[in-house]
């Protein structure tokens, strides 16, 4: 991983720590900022993929998958953008869904890392399980806004700590010469 990328992970992790705390202490404000972060992440990922497609991947055999991936994330990002106008409950559900899905993906990637005998598979699986746990736990507390924001805020802090740790971690890889 390049130094720039490590710095990016570290800084975004640092930004997420106060956001998580803010979410727990002042849910209304915290919600707005977390939603903004989510929108920026999704739209940024989508735009990145779309630019990559039009610049390079459209000449690649099977490159259309990059276009569709970009479109799906664009859809998700635009939907998140629209959430500001709807009741917060929907926005919360959307964010809970993203957190849970992201946790599931991390769990599967952790399992893949376990097969590849990477040194970080336990951490990765644990982190994914944690995110999934926080995400699914929120569904049990939909009636109690206070507990819901507390659990979700802890989930955000969990993600923040993970990003900071990634910045200092050595990258494992499978390489075939």
């Amino acid at each position: 991983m390049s130094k720039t990328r490590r710095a990016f992970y570290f800084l975004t992790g640092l930004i997420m720590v106060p956001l998580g705390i803010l979410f727990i202490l002042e849910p209304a404000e915290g919600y707005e900022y977390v939603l903004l972060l989510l929108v920026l992440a999704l739209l940024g990922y989508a735009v990145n993929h779309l630019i990559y497609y039009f610049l390079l991947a459209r000449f690649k055999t099977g490159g259309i998958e990059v276009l569709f991936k970009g479109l799906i994330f664009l859809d998700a990002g635009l939907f998140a953008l629209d959430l500001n106008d709807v009741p917060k409950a929907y926005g919360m559900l959307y964010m809970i869904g993203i957190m849970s899905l992201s946790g599931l993906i991390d769990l599967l990637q952790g399992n893949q890392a376990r097969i590849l005998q990477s040194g970080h598979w336990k951490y990765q699986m644990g982190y994914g399980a944690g995110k999934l746990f926080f995400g699914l736990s929120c569904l049990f507390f939909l009636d109690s806004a206070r507990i819901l924001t507390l659990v979700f805020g802890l989930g955000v802090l969990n993600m923040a700590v993970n990003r900071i740790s990634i910045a200092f971690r050595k990258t494992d890889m499978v390489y075939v010469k």
Partner: protein
Amino acid sequence: MQEDFHYYATYCAAFLAGYTPEESREIAYSAQLVDCCSKTFIRKYKGPVTAATTQLQTELADTHTNIPGIQDITRIWASFHFLPGNLYAVLKRRPRVYMDKYRLICDVNGPLVRDTVILANKGGTEACGIAMHILADTWAHRYFAGTPSFVINDAREFFELRETENGIERIKVRFNHNPISPDSLEKNKFTNCLKQDGELSTMNLGHGRAGHLPDYSCMVYEFQPAWGDYMIILKDNPSDYYRAFCQMVYAMGFLRGEFTEFETDRYDEEKVQPYRDEIMSILKKRQLIANEDWKSFGERLTGTALEDFDLQKYGGEYMASAREEKEHTFLGRFFTAAIAQKSMVTNKIYSSGNRIAGFSVEQDPGGLKGMAKFGMTAYGQGRGGAS
């Protein structure tokens, strides 16, 4: 290609070209050393790290995929394992950023092959060995580029074309990503790199997405490369490896002074013809590595025993030499030849207007004149100068 071809087959080819068994051993050793001479290896003997001809997995993991990192990776892999076939290739309606990678696709009989062999003419058996490794790899690794690129090096739809009693059978190749489980020809199980759609991921370097298929001499298969725009490539390894062998014999004939000119797409089939059947049977035999067969062939050919490749063979000599004498040891000459090759290829890539392999110091009016001042760069700093 693997040790079976780079070491043992090169030994046989060198002998057929007219070298003595001892010279053939040195050439073969150099050819195989190209696959082992990493920065870790060089640092062990306190040599110039710019002479690195390969990168270990751990070194690749530590290499940042920022611009300098990509340039470092490209310099090594494009210079020694994926020699570009045509640095001036033209495709319609492709942006510059795409063409910079496309032009690094390895192919046989390109102008750089000629430049590599002619450059080796200035060196000894070490330079010859390096050139033979590069030449042989153009046959095995063609259609892949020595730079990380998803849009060039990804590949799909692999089918093995296997000869059976019922004729040619088209069998889908199934890959897994578990590096622990070995490849199995019987079970049709192979390992390849994980699919990573990050453009600059090192998983997308070279033929990682094809696994070891290009390195197995018995494999005949077809696939769709990412750059091919849905074209199907047929890769006939036994045939390609045989031509590589014949071309090595011709190239080494030139290096011995048998010919005044070196031309690409020329093969000394006359010298190889008496052994064609035996060579083809080795190449076509379904096995993951053919060390024993090639070794046996080489020993019968030369009438002398051939020791197995020993990576540490010349390390002691290099370490024991005085600083001024290191250049004249086997490893010292190997390092010099490797740096010269890397400098030449980087220079050619740079001259074509492509910055992907970095800046060529030969072009810099105020700085070092290429590797002419190798001694100063290598021994003055201990890490080597710009390359």
